[in-house]
């Protein structure tokens, strides 16, 4: 056999060996990919099976909650009136009255009264520091928050400089009343006696 024939055979053998090595390695890699995809398909099947009833269940929960909210809002409007109901809701959740009641579209156009104005956080702070705050005397969490006999000193700590014209003191003896009522100081209004059968 001539030398050229030997070289040809060697070249072909080298090419075949390269083909075998790389193709077998590729086949092994593809088998690993197939095994991994089998695991993925199994997990995805579990996800699909587990999440299938979620839509119906959540829709049922929302329907029940919507019905309950609608009924409670209707009861609140029926008993307190539209204006006071909006004021109460807006006092508990500031800004919620803008959304109105879901079964009363006209409630979105109304301006809620400021029923809960007195229950702001600043007022609570003043109530704690005020001279007549019962929370300072009978604090359930431990000792009193301040000495009730010298409560004005605690109130003064609210202002680093000179005390402004308005007073943070609240109560019946406060110089500034948050709600000035015309019947203060007059005899209490007596209700007519109702006879129950």
């Amino acid at each position, binding site marked *: 056999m001539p030398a*050229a024939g030997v070289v040809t055979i060697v070249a072909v053998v080298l090419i075949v060996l390269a*083909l075998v090595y790389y193709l077998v390695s*590729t086949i092994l*890699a593809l088998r690993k990919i197939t095994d991994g995809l089998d695991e993925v398909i199994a997990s995805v099947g579990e996800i699909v099976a587990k999440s299938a009833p979620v839509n119906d*269940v959540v829709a049922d929960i929302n329907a029940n909650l919507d019905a309950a909210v609608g009924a409670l809002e209707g009861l609140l409007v029926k008993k307190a009136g539209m204006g006071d109901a909006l004021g109460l809701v807006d006092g508990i959740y500031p800004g919620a009255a803008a959304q109105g009641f879901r079964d009363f579209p006209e409630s979105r156009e109304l301006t809620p009264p400021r029923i809960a104005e007195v229950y702001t956080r600043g007022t609570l702070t003043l109530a704690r520091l005020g001279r007549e705050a019962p929370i300072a005397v009978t604090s359930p969490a431990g000792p009193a928050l301040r000495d009730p006999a010298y409560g004005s000193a605690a109130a003064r700590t609210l202002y680093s400089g000179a005390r402004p014209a308005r007073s943070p003191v609240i109560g019946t003896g406060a110089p500034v009343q948050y709600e000035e009522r015309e019947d203060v100081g007059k005899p209490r209004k007596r209700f007519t006696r109702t006879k129950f059968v």
Partner: protein
Amino acid sequence: MTLWWIGNAVLLLAVLPVVVYLLHGVLGASNSIVPSVRRIADVAAAGSKDLDATALLLTTQDQVRQTVAGVAAYGGSLDVILDDHEEA
């Protein structure tokens, strides 16, 4: 004979490197897919495990129904007890 040698040279210097280069690229691409598929499988398994709690939604659904029924009964009682609002 000369053409034979030229053919051998082409086979060894051109065909064999090209074959090796192409097959090496295919093998590299295949091997790069394997870890990605492994990570996807792990994430899918973790997602499936996270959804184990969805069965509790049935309990939540039942409790919401009971709660709404209780609220409805309570609201009915309040409707009887409290007077309706009267416009001034």
